[in-house]
């Protein structure tokens, strides 16, 4: 009984703090000064058509580096917690999994190539259209998941995933340092030539960085799925 009262008080207190802000804040009329500066400067300075990508990769690039680090820590944690030994599966034979239905197998055969190509398209064009590294990485992880579902006996190669993840992470920091040496600061995309706005090869090192992020996120999410499936040694 006491517990219910405390829970009710906690939720009521949070509501009292949150609802006036939500109901009375109103809708802003125009973006603030910083946002307007980003909107007008990003296409000229960096040649990126997608301003959100320019902010995520270069203006607030350090936050993205931190986020990639957090995702790496979570993946490492999941992989360390869910090894076969710790799950109690040990040396036991992996239990016989039922074979996938024919619809799933056929559809996967048709879709996996398209999904991987779609994911690569999304993160290559991150500076031109909505999208970018995280979305493309998730689509690639989904393609690998579909392959795992259609062939339950297969395992993802842990070595290749680890190699892709660590190499792209190191290359991401390497591109940032390239910006520090060749341009005006860490993760400055002007280290590579800017090109013409709207074309694929433009916006300096933004597409390169976002592609590396996409590969890293895709490898990490596939690693999480692999660990949860119970196949991680």
């Amino acid at each position, binding site marked *: 009984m006491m517990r219910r009262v405390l829970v009710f008080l906690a939720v009521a207190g949070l509501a009292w703090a949150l609802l006036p802000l939500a109901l009375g804040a109103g809708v802003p009329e125009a973006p603030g000064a910083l946002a307007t500066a980003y*909107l*007008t400067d990003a296409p000229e300075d960096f040649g990126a058509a997608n301003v959100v990508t320019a902010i995520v990769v270069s203006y607030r690039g350090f936050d*993205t580096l931190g986020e990639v680090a957090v995702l790496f820590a979570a993946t490492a944690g999941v992989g360390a917690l869910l090894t076969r030994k710790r799950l109690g599966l040990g040396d036991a034979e992996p239990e016989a999994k039922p074979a996938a239905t024919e619809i799933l197998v056929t559809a996967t055969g048709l879709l996996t190539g398209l999904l991987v190509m779609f994911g690569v398209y999304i993160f290559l064009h991150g500076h031109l259209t909505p999208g970018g590294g995280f979305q493309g990485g998730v689509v690639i992880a989904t393609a690998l998941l579909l392959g795992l579902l259609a062939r339950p006996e297969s395992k993802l190669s842990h070595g290749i995933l680890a190699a892709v993840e660590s190499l792209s992470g190191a290359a991401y920091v390497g591109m940032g340092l390239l910006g520090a040496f060749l341009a005006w600061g860490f993760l400055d995309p002007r280290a590579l030539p800017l090109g013409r706005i709207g074309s694929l090869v433009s916006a300096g090192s933004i597409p390169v960085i976002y592609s590396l992020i996409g590969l890293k996120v895709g490898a990490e999410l596939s690693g999480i799925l692999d660990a949860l499936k119970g196949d991680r040694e």
Partner: protein
Amino acid sequence: MSILEFVSRINPVAASGAVLVLVGVWGVLARPNLFKIAIATSVMETGVNLVILSTGYIRGRTAPILDSAVAGTATDAAGAAARMTDPVPQALVLTAIVIGLAVTALQLSYAVRLRAAGGGSSIESYGDEKW
């Protein structure tokens, strides 16, 4: 302040996000099942993302992406910027969504590990684990 003024000042995104946060917090506090706590945390995180993004919601404007119509004409930069929503909260929420997935995966792997070690699936049964 009249009712109509009050209704027109409500930010619909912030209102639905705030109520989702309250629903999620209640779920985390009131339900003992470990997996239900993880689901409620996920609902709460969606609400928080909605509340953050609501500060950048400007009526009548479109996505902050320069399409090919204005590509190459840098003189129209200020005019194009006047038709775009605020891009900074979008960048923040992008980060927050991915980190939400990482936190959920970690929560669930803790729950799986506790179950594999022989524990129950209700948080009540871990009463003697307090410091």
